């Protein structure tokens, strides 16, 4: 929890990782991809405050004690949601798997939510693994990475028929939240890999699932906003928005926040640190202190007050994941409903 000016914030980190990307986990023959991936992540860390930067060696492989201190002890997080990313073509044991996360997390009851993942190209076997993961880890959410390489295929879309089989299975298994992370490769490569039209279709066809578009669809924030405003079950995952822009490019951060507040609304935005890319401490502190710059450029954006920040930092995610929020952190009557689906309908004519 975080407290500032007498206000108490319940913090749910909606997007974080526990990875091993050190050379001991690189797949022989694919070293350049494993190395390229983690160095790319490390470059993102460079957009945070200098005093929070890690060496590449530490960044490649950090340990349980590091995570518990950075996220919970120093980072104000009450509950953290693991978002696994497998990348087994590059990392022998996977980049960060459901098992790796849970093995560590089980030592700290109540601190973690274990999302799992699936890949529609894994066929019937993948469906069975999904069922077992839900049973074993109690997963209520899945993280999907559409640019994952798999047996010669460079990626997939949510509208692929095989993906619909998995979404149907998710509903059957009681999974509620689908976190979508777009990446640079899909089939076919001549299309825009970051296009969010497939999320639009899937969200319409699966109204009982929530679709959290991670990184607010970056680099397609505009397409994401216009889609999200029309789909009551589409949410904005703020991982990378705060981490990459709030410190490095504050005016762009304000503009992006303005757009998100206008099109998506404070009920449907979820904080995520993307740890270990960035530590949550400076992100939580900076976000609570944040306001629009005093300029006409921002005057027609919706304002973000304390109640809105409480929703974004934790109450919205708590609602989506059924996390019990102690009374002292809840909103007072009249301050709105976290994760209210209707907030998406505010833009007339869209």
């Amino acid at each position: 929890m975080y407290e500032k000016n007498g206000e108490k914030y319940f913090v749910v980190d909606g997007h974080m990782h526990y990875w091993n990307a050190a050379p001991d986990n690189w797949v022989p023959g694919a070293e350049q991809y494993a190395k390229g991936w983690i160095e790319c992540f490390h470059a993102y860390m460079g957009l945070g405050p200098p005093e929070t930067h890690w060496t590449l060696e530490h960044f490649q492989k950090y340990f349980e004690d590091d995570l518990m201190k950075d996220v919970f002890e120093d980072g104000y997080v009450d509950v953290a949601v693991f978002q696994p990313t497998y990348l087994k073509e590059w990392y022998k044991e996977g980049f960060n798997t459901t098992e790796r996360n849970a093995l560590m997390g089980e030592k700290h009851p109540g601190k973690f939510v274990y999302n799992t993942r699936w890949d529609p190209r894994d066929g019937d076997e993948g469906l069975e693994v999904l069922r077992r993961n839900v049973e074993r880890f109690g997963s209520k959410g899945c993280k999907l990475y559409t640019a994952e390489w798999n047996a010669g295929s460079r990626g997939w879309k949510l509208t692929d028929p095989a993906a619909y089989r998995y979404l149907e299975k998710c509903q059957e298994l009681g999974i509620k939240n689908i976190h979508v992370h777009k990446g640079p490769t899909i089939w076919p490569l001549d299309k825009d890999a970051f296009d969010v039209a497939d999320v639009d279709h899937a969200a319409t066809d699966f109204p009982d699932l929530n679709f959290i578009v991670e990184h607010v669809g970056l680099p397609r924030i505009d397409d994401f906003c216009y889609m999200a405003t029309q789909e009551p079950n589409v949410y904005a995952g703020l991982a990378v928005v705060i981490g990459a822009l709030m410190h490095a490019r504050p005016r762009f951060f304000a503009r992006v926040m303005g757009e998100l507040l206008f099109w998506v609304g404070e009920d449907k935005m979820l904080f995520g640190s993307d740890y270990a890319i960035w530590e949550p401490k400076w992100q939580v502190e900076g976000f609570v202190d944040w306001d629009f710059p005093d300029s006409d450029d921002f005057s027609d954006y919706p304002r973000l007050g304390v109640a809105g920040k409480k929703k974004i930092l934790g109450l919205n995610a708590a609602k989506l994941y059924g996390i019990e929020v102690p009374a002292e952190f809840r909103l007072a009557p009249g301050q709105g409903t976290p994760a209210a689906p209707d907030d998406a309908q505010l833009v007339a004519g869209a």
Partner: protein
Amino acid sequence: MTAPATSRAGGPGGSSSRASSPAPRGVSGAATSQAGAALAALATVRDPELDEPITSLGFVTSCTVSADGDARVRLRLPTYFCAPNFAFLMVADAYDAVSGVPGVRGTEVVLEDHFASDAINGGVAAQAGFAASFDGEAVSELHGLRADFLRKAVMAGTDQVCRPLLAAGASRASLLAMTLGDVPASGALDRLRQRRAELGLPAGPGAPLLIDPATGERIREEAAPLHLRRARSTRISIEANSSICRGMLRHRYETSGLGEEEQ
């Protein structure tokens, strides 16, 4: 063997204050001007997603032209995994632009440090096209993708042109009635007209200021508020993306690119 005319990253072409290397010595004036002409040609190549020249973005590592007319260009991108389709377009466009410089006899463009460098560099060198360069992974060339992003550039450019007008007191209704010729001259207006012309959209002084970039039709009054909102969203999306790319590039490479401009 003659010494190539060289423009190195961080050298005279770079405008930033970051690490710079001294200008090469022993370069003949004629060859230097050829390298300059090649760099000027590269400045006409844009990142299709960011709608900015690859030079000002810092993507040009080096550009040389030998006395015999052999041009060599090295390009770089903010990450190892930047989207391969856009990367291919930039390498292919750079190849075409430099090949068109008078006196250039042969051109080699090399994209460095990218997961698809081999496929892209080989495909561009062989003039093979995108689909053949990524055999089995692509079904068509990239004209559609390029047009999609030109339409985004038109939307972003619409906001760049309209925002100052609105700030100066113009009403939305007055924007609807305006033609491109009614707008005071500016770099933003030139850019918008150029992007519209590239798409085959009305771009002359008599053309409406507000048009649908997909159809070229004039925007109707009731659709104007949403159109302008979307124009701003598109501009902000592109600019935010661009700022992240610049930050990543800076972290990845210590030297600035040829012609790089700080934001």
